[in-house]
């Protein structure tokens, strides 16, 4: 990672009529970083990504990508970006390899360059043996890998990934993550949106949590967990109706308690101690699980999603 700033946003705003989708966010991403936008649906992640991808005019604030202004140099910026949108948008009238050729030509690459690049990318996407097939019958994971391969055809300096693994099965997700690690090692800057905590924890060096168009927290996954959660969490499940009765005694013994419909999340520095103290007070849950804090706990705390929907 160097100090070169590839993405700079100051007070970046996007509105659609009355509705403010992105409400004055500040973001800095440096070359070689894997940066994440984490947030629930409708938090403004995709609107931000579209502005960064230079396909959505900025409503207000300042935005610079690769040091350039998208309002002036949109095409020049896009020539150096790779975009992997939320929906695959592959060209179903073309074969797998034609998808790469045709897309490469949109970047003004010569036929020779495109063909050489296609072989590399098919290898990367593990699709070499499907190169002559139509796109339509490919599995979800294969389509996603092809979309990412297509986004890489111009050797981009920055790869934008909008919810890269949404809708994929666990195996396909791990294959995809593995490909993304490889890109990161090769020095490609990754900008990722996701609402999966494990994905953010796995992939991102640094991330911001967005809610209602604003940034509510920023840091590395570790930093966020330290700042917004406790070291450990105890998950308590009770018999029907019992949860509410015990809530008071549990709250007295913990830093914070999050009441989900089916369980209590008890935030504490030492889970075993807390559990022992609860037993001492006669709290007998059906089950108790002590675990380390994750980004999900940070997320629940910051966005209050568990109470809203």
């Amino acid at each position, binding site marked *: 990672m160097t100090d070169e700033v590839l993405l700079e946003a100051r007070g970046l705003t996007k509105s*659609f009529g009355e509705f403010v989708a992105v409400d004055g966010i500040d973001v800095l991403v440096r070359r070689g970083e894997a940066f994440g936008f984490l947030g629930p649906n409708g938090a403004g992640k995709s609107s931000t990504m579209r502005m960064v*991808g*230079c*396909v*959505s*005019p*900025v*409503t207000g604030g300042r935005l610079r990508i690769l040091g350039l*202004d*998208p*309002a*002036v140099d*949109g*095409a*020049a910026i*896009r*020539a150096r*970006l790779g*975009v992997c*949108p939320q*929906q695959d*948008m*592959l*060209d*179903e*009238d*073309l074969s797998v390899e*034609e998808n790469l*050729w*045709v*897309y490469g*030509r*949109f*970047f*003004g690459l010569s036929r020779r360059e495109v063909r050489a690049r296609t072989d590399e990318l098919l290898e990367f996407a593990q699709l070499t043996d499907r190169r002559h097939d139509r796109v339509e019958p490919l599995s979800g994971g294969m389509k996603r890998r092809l979309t990412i391969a297509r986004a890489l055809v*111009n050797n981009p300096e920055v790869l934008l990934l909008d919810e890269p693994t949404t809708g994929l099965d666990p195996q396909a997700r791990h294959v995809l993550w593995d490909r993304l690690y490889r890109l990161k090692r090769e020095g490609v800057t990754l900008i990722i949106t996701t609402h999966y905590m494990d994905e953010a924890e796995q992939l991102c060096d640094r991330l911001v949590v967005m809610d209602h168009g604003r940034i509510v927290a920023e840091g590395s996954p570790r930093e966020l967990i330290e700042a917004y959660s406790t070291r450990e969490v105890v998950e308590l499940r009770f018999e029907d109706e019992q949860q509410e009765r015990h809530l008071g005694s549990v709250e007295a013994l913990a830093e914070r308690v999050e009441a989900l419909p089916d369980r209590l999340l008890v935030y504490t520095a030492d889970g075993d101690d807390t559990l022992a103290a609860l037993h001492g007070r006669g709290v007998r849950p059906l089950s108790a699980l002590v675990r380390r804090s994750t980004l999900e706990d940070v997320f629940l705390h910051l966005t209050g999603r568990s109470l809203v929907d």
Partner: protein
Amino acid sequence: MTAPASHGTRWRAVPFPPGLGMARFVLARNAAAFRRSWVLLLSGFVEPVFYLFSLGVGLGALIGGVRTDGGALVSYAAFVAPALLAASAMNGAIFDATFNVFFKLKYQRLYDAMLATPVGPRDIAVGEIAWSLVRGGLYSAMFLLVALVAGLVRSWWALLAVPAALLVGLAFGAVAMFTTTFMRSWQDFDYVTLAIQPMFLFSATFFPLSTYPEALQWVVRATPLYHGVVLERALLLGEVGWGLLWHVGYLLVLGVVGVVGTSRRIATLLLT
């Protein structure tokens, strides 16, 4: 060139300089996709040929000669053939610029994917319309060949009939694609049929303009297919004069307005 920041990406919708630029890659994409479905070319070709033989040759046998608006007396088949050439150029372009474009725009999201690259809205508009011209040009050339074999071509000016058909295709393709950007669902395409049918039947296609009362003649003169029909008829029958440039101008303006409008609409729809 500078642009207000809030409309950043819109400047790419302005159609000057008018070179093909990135549009040729959009064209190349369509050519690659078409390789798998070239059989479709047949349907666009056979329709006007069927019309030519059923109406021009078959019905024409009952009619005898027709006096053209230029004053010459020709067989009915020779009278109808140029009009069918213009109409097939229109139909080919419209089919491509409506159904195919709508599918790419709304369902395939093809243009969203293109706009993530240096390709801009104008490149898409020009590339798509150029593609419908390639298709329309192929239909026209094949039809002209049939007309030639059937002995319905009477002048060397007919060599210009294919470029003229491309012009008709440009005008209709561009306006049709512009219209398509306003379509909400497949039902809306009924309006396209509603506009094309009467034009096909009444634009001095099957009988001369002089058949109409004076007031209706002006209505016919206002419609675009009429200009295409007059142009093709003049070229195939060799009744060429400077007055034809007016028809060329009409179709050209329509085409340019359509291309500019389409670029703007793509930007408005997709670069939000």
